């Protein structure tokens, strides 16, 4: 019962790791996962989140075994 969490780019450097695991609790949102894993770090205002590689808002519920990613605004092209 866990969620795989991934960080990218400047956020990965800020947090100091690329991946993490979060114990799944029914009813938890994207924001709750952040709070649980990084209680001492405030979430950047422009942060983006994706569940299973699709964009989601921060109040989206997560499901067990989801891959949840946090990253800064994209800058490709």
């Amino acid at each position, binding site marked *: 019962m866990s969620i795989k969490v991934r960080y*990218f780019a400047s956020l990965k450097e800020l947090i100091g790791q690329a991946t993490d695991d979060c114990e799944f609790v029914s009813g938890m949102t994207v924001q709750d996962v952040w709070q649980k894993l990084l209680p001492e770090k405030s979430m950047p205002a422009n942060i983006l989140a994706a569940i299973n590689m*699709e964009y989601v808002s921060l109040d989206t519920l997560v499901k067990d075994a989801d891959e949840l*990613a946090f990253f800064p605004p*994209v*800058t*490709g092209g």
Partner: protein
Amino acid sequence: MIKICTSAFEPYKEIEAYQIQQKKSLAGKQGAANVFVGTMRDFNEGEEVKGMTLEHYPGMTEKQLQHVLAEAAEQWPLLDSLVIHRVGDVFPDDVLVLVAVWSAHRGAAFDACRFIMEALKSKVPFWKKEILKDGECRWVDKNTDGYVG
């Protein structure tokens, strides 16, 4: 077609190679192609840039690019499209991105190519980290809107 390249690519050779397979399906129908090629400059925000690392989110990159192409194909009568994006370490004058769009009519080709580029820049998970002249690194913090200026 969507391709993520970890080494240098030549955009016009890629189009030519792609058009060989494509030929039969577009024969007689394609009136217009619009192509965008984005290349690394040696300056950004007033500073000299020596190199860059392009990070991405493998899997999500392809998924989001597919969404962008599907959205373009819904809005315009496209015959085909091709997107190639570079990742990893790049240097000035390296090609970063190629978008090519084929249609019967030029308005659709221009509009769709531009739409794909803007959507790519705002939605597809790539991130640029610049290496400046003094060896210092900085993450590019946001892309500008390409419809203005």
